[in-house]
């Protein structure tokens, strides 16, 4: 009973401690809320809406008088200003490339599209070349990528017409056939019609059948899953903090003299230490439960099937608790704790949960980014949680669970042995 009394006393003390409440509950909620706010919380339909891209269009293109004042530049400018792109692009026009570039330099615009003077002429000159410049702020990647893709699609339609006309001209010439301008124009027009039908979506399905890989989520669910992943990583990160902070009380009580005093009572040191260890695990259970409940209610996080999730939670609780005991057993006194809590736990934790953030970046999810977290206990805990949250079964979380339990055994044994040695007693 004394073991439980000590555990309850410690637990009560912690739950009244604003340091634990702030760091163990407040900060993870705060970080989750920041990401929720950043990526999905403000979108009315629960989806992420990319902010409008501010585009300055400079149309320097000179119409070709010989072809009825045809102006490819004007067509492109009109296309960019069209209603269908209105939600994506906020287009303004400028007469000067230098002014447009300066607007991008001053961050008044995200992208400047500079249509060259010879664009239309290049359409009709077999040797003609023209370059449309998409000038952008180098800190931006998504917006300029989208703009470039839109402009490229438009330019490809023009290019295709020219290629079709010039190929026909050249190939027929090889067969000794000279075609007139009307035939060439007709070929270019027919290509243009075919290209337009693709652009309008009538023929897009004839080119590609796109399907999502098995297990991928709809966009709305993806946002919730992303916030859920971030909350899971926060729970894991701060569970380890809580484990270390609660194990710190062993050192604190030794310094305050309460432990030596306790050791003069009939309570054996093993019971005292046992009570404190129970408090460490109980505290993490409380913390994890509160954060999961909060995340479910506010961020609509779904945690997967109860069985695998329960195993992942058990793994986290025992691992975070024993890691805390292990780390604190190496400290001389509580003065070192600040650096360990603020430094070591932060570094190990950030590396361990980094896959949550790197996994969303194109090309950044593999290699070292996937391997390095597994050198930390946090990484294995996160793996188990994500497998459970992604709908994995008990068999799926078994491997990370076994690793977590093995790590727990090592950390717990070393930590308890060191504390027993230092505290002495019977």
């Amino acid at each position, binding site marked *: 009973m004394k073991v439980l009394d000590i555990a309850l006393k410690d637990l009560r003390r912690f739950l009244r401690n604003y*340091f634990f409440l*702030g*760091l163990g509950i407040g*900060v993870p909620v*705060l*970080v989750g809320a920041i990401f929720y*706010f*950043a*990526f999905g919380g*403000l*979108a009315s339909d629960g989806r*992420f809406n990319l*902010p409008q891209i501010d585009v300055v269009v400079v149309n320097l293109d000179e119409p070709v008088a010989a072809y009825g004042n045809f102006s490819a530049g004007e067509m492109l400018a009109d296309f960019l200003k069209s209603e269908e792109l209105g939600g994506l692009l906020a287009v303004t026009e400028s007469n000067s490339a230098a002014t447009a570039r300066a607007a991008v330099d001053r961050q008044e615009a995200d992208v400047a599209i500079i249509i060259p003077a010879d664009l239309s002429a*290049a359409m009709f000159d077999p040797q003609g070349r*023209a*370059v*449309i*410049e*998409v*000038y*952008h702020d*180098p*800190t931006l*990647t998504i917006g300029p*990528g989208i703009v*470039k893709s839109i402009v*490229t*699609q438009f330019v490809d339609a023009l290019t*295709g017409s*020219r*290629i*079709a006309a010039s*190929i*026909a001209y050249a*190939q*027929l010439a090889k067969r000794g*056939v000279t075609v007139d301008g009307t035939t060439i124009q007709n070929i270019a027009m027919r*290509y243009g019609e*075919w290209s337009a039908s*693709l652009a309008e979506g009538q023929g897009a399905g004839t*080119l*590609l*059948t*796109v399907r*999502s*890989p098995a297990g991928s*989520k709809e*966009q709305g669910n*993806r946002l919730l899953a992303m916030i859920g992943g971030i909350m899971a990583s926060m729970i894991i990160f701060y569970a380890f903090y809580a484990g270390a902070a609660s194990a710190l009380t062993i050192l604190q009580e030794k310094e305050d003299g309460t432990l030596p005093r306790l050791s003069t009572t009939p309570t054996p040191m093993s019971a005292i230490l046992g009570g404190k260890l129970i408090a460490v695990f109980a505290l993490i259970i409380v913390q994890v439960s509160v954060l999961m409940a909060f995340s479910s209610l506010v961020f609509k996080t779904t945690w997967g099937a109860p069985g695998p999730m329960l195993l992942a939670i058990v793994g986290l609780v025992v691992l975070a608790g024993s890691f805390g005991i292990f780390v604190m057993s190496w400290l001389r006194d509580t003065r070192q704790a600040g*650096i360990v809590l603020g430094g070591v736990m932060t570094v190990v934790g*950030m590396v361990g949960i*980094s896959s949550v953030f*790197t996994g*969303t970046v*194109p*090309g*950044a*999810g*593999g290699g070292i*980014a996937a391997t390095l977290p597994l050198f930390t206990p946090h990484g294995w805990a996160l793996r188990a949680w994500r497998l459970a949250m992604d709908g994995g079964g008990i068999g799926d979380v078994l491997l990370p669970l076994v690793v977590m339990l093995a790590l727990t055994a090592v950390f717990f044994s070393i930590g308890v042995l060191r504390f027993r040695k230092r505290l002495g007693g019977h």
Partner: protein
Amino acid sequence: MRSIDLMVKDLQQLVRNWMTPVFLVAMPIGFTLFFGMIFSGAGGQSDPRLPVAFVDQDNGSVLSTHLLDLLEASDAIRPVASDESVDRVERKVGKDMAAAVIVPAGYSERVLAGEDVPLTVVADGGTAAGSTAQTAIQAAAVRLRGAVKAAQLSAEALEAQGQAADESFLMGALDEAIAAWRQLPLTVVATQSRAAVEKEEKPSVMATRYGQASPGMMVQFSIAGIMGAAQILVLERKSRSLQRLLTTAISRVEIIVGHYLTMFVMILAQLAVLISFGQLLGVNYMREPVAVLLLAVTMALWTASLGLLIGTLARTEEQAIIFSLIPMFVLSALGGAWMPLEVTGKAFQTVGHLLPTAWAMDGIQNIIVRGLGLESALLPAGIMLAYAVVLFALAAWRFKFE
């Protein structure tokens, strides 16, 4: 002078603890390298384009070969030919591969015969990598089918002239059209603002790789760095050293200034080390040394003011830690130190720019990424200075000696 003595004492106290340089310098350096590496495409592969599995069930047919050529020419994706089953390839999408493109059996023959046969693309369009890959594959598919269309139009034109368009004519026209699509007469070129073109500087790969991570970690860990100094202040108050100091000739103002100077010098030194390290990584901080100095000084000023305020408000060392960590997380995340604000919503960006961290990021990136000059550092520096004044005034007002 007494303030300086106090500062020297504080700094000695901080430096004597071997954990201080670890926390102030080693950690941000480690994280800069880590995030720089992973956000630049994992491990610095020689070809940074997104890998896309290419499954050719049409066994090297004319069109599948041309498609592979067109995909190779993409600046967004690189095809990786695969002999594995579709199921196995599909399982790699979203992990090792950004997408997979499957050319069905008989594709070439049927398309050349005028049938509409779609390619199968497996991609998660909800991810940035998946949608980028899908767009690039679609562009290549449009060009491939455009080449077929051009060849077919040529054949029709030949037949209209009374000659038969045999297979060799069609293939010749197709080859020419594919070649033309690989040497585009009309091109779209993305260029970056001045950093890329000024003084014939090439766009620095390193500036791209570490342009976010280097200033981001600098901003985050400068706030983390004040934790130790704030704890010293708390410790001095708890141990009544501050009260004892008042019995000496040193004035209250000198005590406050002394502690403030400690934090300022410590953060400035930290920033100097991190800037030098960034320079070694290839991030060109030294292209505008005056601007960088101005930004570092104002950054150290406002962060030191925040540290003084934390040291003033915290009653225990634990409080000093939590009062440092919370602003570190909140200000770093909202200010764009963790991720570029570009990927967040408009409201988030607006809120972010109410904070000095977003301005610190803007100021540094104006120099190292955008390639702007001293004038671009003035507004960010001014805003950080304003924060420094307000926070210092608050700290001085609430400063307690007991």
